[in-house]
């Protein structure tokens, strides 16, 4: 998978709760290749980046995603400039 990060294709990624702890950061800007156009493809790409991501996404059924602060599904489209957050099922209230 390409490690090149072309300018103009930057995603703002946020991680919460145990995803943040496993990945080791709460926020980063990454530029995946242009064929990464859905949430599911983004996760595939992230998992290939290293063991922290592998641990975070080991069980995808326990991971939720929001694209630009709206809950998203694996097939939700993503575009450069989007804010994409990954987190466990919420437990507030």
């Amino acid at each position, binding site marked *: 998978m390409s490690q090149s990060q072309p300018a103009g294709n930057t995603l703002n990624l*946020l991680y*919460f*709760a*145990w995803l943040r702890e496993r990945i080791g950061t709460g926020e980063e800007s990454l530029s995946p290749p242009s064929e990464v156009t859905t949430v599911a493809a983004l996760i595939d790409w992230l998992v290939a980046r290293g063991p922290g991501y592998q641990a975070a996404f080991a069980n995808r059924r326990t991971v939720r995603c*929001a694209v630009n*602060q709206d*809950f998203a599904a694996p097939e939700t489209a993503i575009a450069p400039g989007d*804010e994409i*957050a990954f*987190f*466990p*099922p*919420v*437990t*507030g*209230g």
Partner: protein
Amino acid sequence: MATIRIQSEDFDVAAECAVLTRNQAAIGGIGCFIGTVRGFSKSREIRSMTLEHYPTMTERAMAAIAATAEARWQLLGCTLIHRIGTLLPGDNIVLVLAASAHRQAALDATGFLIDWLKTRAPFWKKELFSDGAEAWIEANTEDDNAAARWSQ
């Protein structure tokens, strides 16, 4: 119309009720739910609980939940306050108030609001136990089922 706040400090139920009912002559009942930090989790003693959230999304998600309640019941106001940061056993976590001319709408909306807050607002809780261990609270299917009731 809804009051929505995310804050570290505690809330005062009586003061929030007073704000909610000010100049609202048609209110006949206020439903309320207060969530508090339990001192035990599966009989393991809890030292503290830390609440993390997703700042740019939280208020938006809470506003959407309140708007859904206001569309569904004849409400004369509602209040959602959720605390963040580190809390101790017995501390308040969340306050839901729903005011209406009639009690059933107020009580139903209160149940709806807390069920949806629990399943749709981006908060996460981590418990720190007395023995020093810590663990993120896992979402439970009971909460999902409770929230799903309102979809019928």
